[in-house]
């Protein structure tokens, strides 16, 4: 393939029973690009995001990460997943491990780094997301916003080629949304390749290189944020934006 996209989805389809959740999805994400996926609930945004590291299987089509098609199972899949970071809506920090352990674990067991190196990197990353002082605590002792920042540090510790965010602020209390978005905006500025499913339109305007609008399992339109929010072309995008931007 001559396409130099880092993440390339080609003719991706998925059904849950009768429900066609992804319809012929075509998407190519360049290195360093920040793609924000928005759309009404049930549009298939999260499924698309989760399909990129095969937490959801797809029925047809291909997904390629840095030129390598996603393997079906086993060791190759694990290796590829290590290169694709994932941040979940519900944080999913390992509940029985300390904050430090959460960030160290993958480095030691997947990247086979020494414990000392892994801890050094973990402290750096925790400092970077503003949780340096909480390394010894357990996830349940932190606020939602803090937990999500730890989750971002955990994903960054693997030095992924691309980071996927599946509605990272949807489970947060309003006053904690910004602390997470600030970390994400900083990452975007530093050139991290990101695919972000979100309802935060402010973040999309501020940090995205491209906004992808999905509805009913399809990519309806995609454009630079200013163009998309200023002059949406499709009726569905217009009506979606009208509903969310009026209040």
């Amino acid at each position, binding site marked *: 393939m001559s396409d130099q996209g880092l993440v390339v989805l080609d003719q991706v389809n998925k059904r849950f029973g009768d429900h066609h959740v992804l319809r012929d999805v075509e998407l190519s994400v360049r290195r360093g690009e920040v793609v924000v996926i928005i759309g009404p609930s049930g549009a298939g945004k999260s499924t698309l995001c989760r399909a990129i590291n095969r937490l959801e299987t797809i029925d047809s089509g291909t997904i390629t990460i840095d030129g390598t098609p996603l393997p079906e*199972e086993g060791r190759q899949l*694990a290796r590829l997943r290590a290169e694709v970071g994932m941040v979940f809506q519900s944080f999913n920090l390992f*509940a029985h491990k300390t904050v430090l352990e959460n960030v160290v674990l993958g480095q030691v067991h997947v990247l086979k780094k020494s414990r000392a190196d892994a801890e050094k990197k973990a402290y750096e990353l925790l400092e970077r997301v503003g949780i340096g002082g909480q390394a010894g605590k357990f996830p349940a002792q932190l606020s939602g916003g803090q937990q999500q920042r730890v989750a971002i540090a955990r994903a960054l510790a693997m030095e992924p080629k691309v980071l996927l965010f599946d509605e990272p602020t949807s489970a947060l209390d309003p006053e904690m949304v910004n602390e997470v978005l600030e970390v994400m905006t900083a990452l975007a500025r530093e050139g991290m390749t990101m695919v972000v499913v979100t309802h935060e339109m402010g973040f999309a305007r501020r940090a995205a290189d491209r906004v992808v609008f999905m509805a009913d399992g399809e990519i309806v339109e995609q454009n630079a944020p200013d163009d998309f929010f200023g002059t949406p072309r499709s009726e569905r995008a217009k009506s979606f934006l009208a509903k969310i931007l009026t209040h």
Partner: protein
Amino acid sequence: MDALLLEWDTVVAAFWMTVRLTAVSALGSLVLGTLLTAMRVAPLATLRRTAGVYVAVARNTPLTLVLLFTGLGVGANLGVELSSDIATNNFWLACIGLTAYTSAFVCEALRAGINTVPVGQAEAARSLGLGFLQTLGLITLPQAFRAVIAPLGGILIALTKNTTIALVVGVSEASVRMREMIETYGDQVMQIFLGFAAGFVLLCLPMGLLFGWLSRRLAVAR
């Protein structure tokens, strides 16, 4: 109380046998039960089915039958000899039978424990690039164990009492000695009986307390 005092050494030796049977079988059951649990959640359908059938058979067969099978079937008929000393041989056969039976219950408890671990925990582990066994060993099983410590304690107590059935393979644990003593000291049946019952209560009560304390201490906060 004369009989119990006169035969004190025998009583202690009998309960020591009970403790040894319990300890070895508990360890064996924990290992085999964990292995069975891993098989039951494995990606390979054959492994899942094999473990499922094993658990169904072991859990629904009376322990007396299981122990008779290991003693008469495996030991006498198939001629499996684990030691040239007959008492030691019987001991190991009893441990195998108790382990085969109890591990099915450990597996069921652990599987219930796995169900308490949110799916997101395994998803997060796999998205870091951890394989199936790493995810199970580092993330899912440790949390599952912590969730079912109290039921595992219950299984251990049941196992302790179940060791009395080892008499069918000729292991002289507490209940065998009790029957022998009742035959010798026919006038003190009640005292002997109460003495041995107290012995079991003394063994099992601390286990229940310990596991209750552990389960509170090791609970995973979510």
